[in-house]
């Protein structure tokens, strides 16, 4: 599938853009690719880009005081990527974003998106909807992290995204779920779907 077609399919499921709106919107994206373990954004930098993932796996992570990196979110085709809160607020990121595998994206800049949002209310509405959905996801995840047992978290992840065990290194998954690696290994062995 053509990259822009992939983006169009994704967007259409969330918000309807008419022909001229889609034309200007599709005009702000550039192709970008990079190899695995490329650091796209570092903490302290302001996220300039919004990425739409065509291929590959990425993760955002936080480096805490005990120097263990905490994985916050994974992004893969077709989802948006980039440090969302830094991008939307244009303030410094507290997180790092890196590719875990060779990746291909469409990407645009805040300036280009802002120009469209200022000129097209429908596009602004779309960005608002996408932001609201992201917020919804974050709250759901917060509940899981706060209230679920290790096994419940593990099962929830497998139910939502069964393929992740094959593509994401287990140490990052364990970190993402807030489970220690030993418990994670145990759950891998015992939990059957």
């Amino acid at each position, binding site marked *: 599938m053509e990259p822009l077609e992939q983006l169009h399919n994704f967007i259409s499921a969330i918000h309807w853009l008419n022909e001229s709106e889609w034309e200007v919107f599709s005009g702000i994206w550039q192709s970008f690719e990079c190899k695995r373990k490329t650091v*796209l*954004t570092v*903490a302290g930098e302001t996220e300039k880009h919004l990425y739409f993932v065509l291929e590959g796996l990425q993760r955002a992570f936080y480096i*805490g*005081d005990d120097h263990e990196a905490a994985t916050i979110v994974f992004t893969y085709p077709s989802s948006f990527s980039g440090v969302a809160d830094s991008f939307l607020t244009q303030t410094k990121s507290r997180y790092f974003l890196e590719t875990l595998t060779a990746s291909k994206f469409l990407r645009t800049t805040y300036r280009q998106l802002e120009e469209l949002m200022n000129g097209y209310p429908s596009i602004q509405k779309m960005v608002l909807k996408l932001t609201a959905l992201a917020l919804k996801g974050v709250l759901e995840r917060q509940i899981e992290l706060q209230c679920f047992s290790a096994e419940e978290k593990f099962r929830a992840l497998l139910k939502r995204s069964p393929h992740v065990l094959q593509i994401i290194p287990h140490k990052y998954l364990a970190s993402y779920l807030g489970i220690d690696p030993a418990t994670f290994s145990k759950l891998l062995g015992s939990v059957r779907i």
Partner: protein
Amino acid sequence: MKSFNSTAVLQELQADVRQLVLGVSYLQKEDPELLELIPAPGKWSVAQVLEHLNSYGRYYLPAIEKSLRANKPRKEQFTPGWFGNYFTRIMKPGKDGKVHNKMSSPKDHRPSASPDVKPVVDEFMDQQHRLLSLLEQSKQKNIGAIRTPISISRFIKLKLGDTFRFLVAHEQRHFVQITNAIREIQRTTGKFQSAPLAIQHSPVF
């Protein structure tokens, strides 16, 4: 001389700098002692290496900032200059991520005996963020036409693109040194076993 897409060069250099920032972000969380210890007699501590890199940044970052005022809009292709390419090639670690040619540092870039860890690391990080910003700004400029004088002689001017390449290659070279220093300290003290090590390198660009 082979020419490159100028935006791609700057992009790649930004990715390289981000690797270093990530590496130091991990180091910042370690016991400062790891950065203070001398790995072996006559060798620099991690803090001293960073201080050495800071001394280059102190000269080059303002020089680059100044040169960016020139009204020379970007050109699609960048061809490295002879000197620039030479300096970058001898600085850059090899494809195996190791340094095979020994060099000694110019006198005025030798670090003090035991620098204070926190200000050194803070300055290094601050410089890298400034460097990221300058690389970003340079995407709008002609990095082949704008020149900056090198620190050891104001009569030798490198193309801006080469100054960036050299600067980053120099930092990467010293990060190999940092990796080796940490390994050595882990070996001799038995401590800091969970300290992060690998900083990846891109091929010579």
